[in-house]
């Protein structure tokens, strides 16, 4: 399976990863429309972690033991044994926040308008996840990891 790795020494804290993630997860796939017009406003699933001078971007780690999937009250969060990805079905999500409580990385975002959670799906529809592809300094890398 693939995992996105953050390289702290390359991260400049520009936040473009969040911008491109938001856009990729918008309906229009257009930056301006995504930020200014779409309702509910799309949410970035990657988060720029910053405590100056340290910065790096983290999204769902797609953990092997996936505590979120184990704790999910509705079956919305699911560890796909074939791909290794942790998937989230917003249609089944009841917004109980149990996954938020058990995520060691605080990587699950709350979509306040939709009253559901949102998290990284590794942009499976793209060759390279949007955050990785658009990082201007190579601070994110998508690599194959052993499970």
């Amino acid at each position, binding site marked *: 399976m693939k995992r996105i*790795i*953050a*390289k*702290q*020494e390359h991260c400049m804290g520009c936040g473009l990863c969040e911008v491109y993630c938001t856009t990729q997860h918008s309906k229009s796939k257009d930056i301006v429309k995504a930020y200014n017009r779409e309702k509910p406003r799309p949410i970035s699933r990657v*988060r720029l*972690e*910053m*405590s100056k001078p*340290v*910065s*790096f971007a*983290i999204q769902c*780690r797609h953990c092997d033991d996936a505590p979120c999937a*184990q*704790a*999910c*009250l*509705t*079956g919305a969060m699911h560890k796909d044994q074939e791909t290794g990805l942790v998937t989230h079905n917003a*249609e*089944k999500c*009841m*917004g*109980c*926040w*149990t996954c*938020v*409580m*058990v*995520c*060691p*990385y*605080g990587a*699950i*975002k*709350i979509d306040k308008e939709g*009253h559901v959670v949102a998290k990284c799906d590794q942009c499976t529809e793209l060759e390279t996840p949007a955050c990785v592809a658009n990082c201007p300094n190579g601070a994110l*890398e998508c690599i194959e990891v052993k499970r």
Partner: protein
Amino acid sequence: MPKYVIVGACAAGIGAVEAIREVDSKGEITVISEEQCSHYSRPMISDFVSGKADLAKMKTRDDQFWQKNNANILSGKKAVSLNIAEHFVALEDGNKVSYEKLLLATGGKPFVPKMEGQEKEGVYTFTNISDAELLAQKISSGTGKNAVVIGAGLIGISVTEALTKRDVKVTIVELQDKILSLLLDPKASDIVEAVVRKAGVNIVTGQSVQKITGKPGNEGSVGGVVLTKGDQIPCDMVIVAIGVIPRTELVTGTAIKTNRGVIVDDYMQTNVPDVYASGDVAEAYDFILNQNRLLPLWPLAVLEGKVAGYNMAGKKTDYAGGTNMSTLKYFGVPIVSIGSANPKPDPTLEIVIKEDVAKGVYKKIVLKDGIIVGMTFLGDIERAGILFYLMKKKVNVKKFKDALLADDFGLAALPLSLRRKMNLEE
């Protein structure tokens, strides 16, 4: 003969089936389920009543779950007794199900104290889909407009929110001085109470219901309640939401040891060989209190069921333990509360609190020797999981404790050594 028999097809039963199949793809599994539809989410029943979710949405696994896992599900069958010497479970219909390894995942049942009038039409409990259906029907029929909810714990607050969304006027009656007193400290409780009251709910604390009265001219139906101090509240529904107690009926009279629930070891095994217990029926390990206790919580039931499943299938697995851990989503106030969030005064504990009234945020951590033993995050919960991780890993946070409660707290605020351990960055 089935190799594995599981009594109960809710959270713990599902967890056990998945774990067994990870280890043993062939051994025959039989699951005995009292309910016709078993694999739905009980914590979601309030969303069923409010109309937000139907049964299809509530299913935690797809309908082919049992078939996919090659498990034989006996739906609508009730296990009535257990014969340990001969290794079988007797069903109500007279059939016997033999086992090599047995998991008791029978769950809990609502606790209903003796009250005069409790047999009247209009008195409900609230733990499973049948309860939710009855309650929803009552509201839809137009005969349920005013409710008294007894108990202001998780179940009481969840049903209150659902009723409020259906325009039912609710009065909560809670014996303790504060609502959600098992989860929250008085301050956090007050914040929630204000929000619940604002939604039009009446809250009476420090009292209980001593008597349920009938309707004038229709004594068989609920017409009101009389509280312990004598106050009367007219209503047409009473929902008893005091809590759940373990369903230990099956082990009564057997050699299986019980306290309040079935006693299990670190492998979720009872004192009787080949018999395991998990979920609301079992007293499993609490890593904060360092003792076994009842913790009737869905996510823990799944984990306990998994541990039992692994061990039943021969993969020796320790249960790491759970603790009192809950999230609340009701009345628009997100809350995460874990462990000893509301401890008795103790000079060895250090409490750090951060409150922002304007933002509706309240955060608290309880430390013992620098290690987090309890926490409440209210209003801003997205990063709460990081603290829960530190709590589980018993990380000494003394040097950065204040950062944990900061608005901008995140992974970058953790020491480098810890970030390395978490494999956060290259």
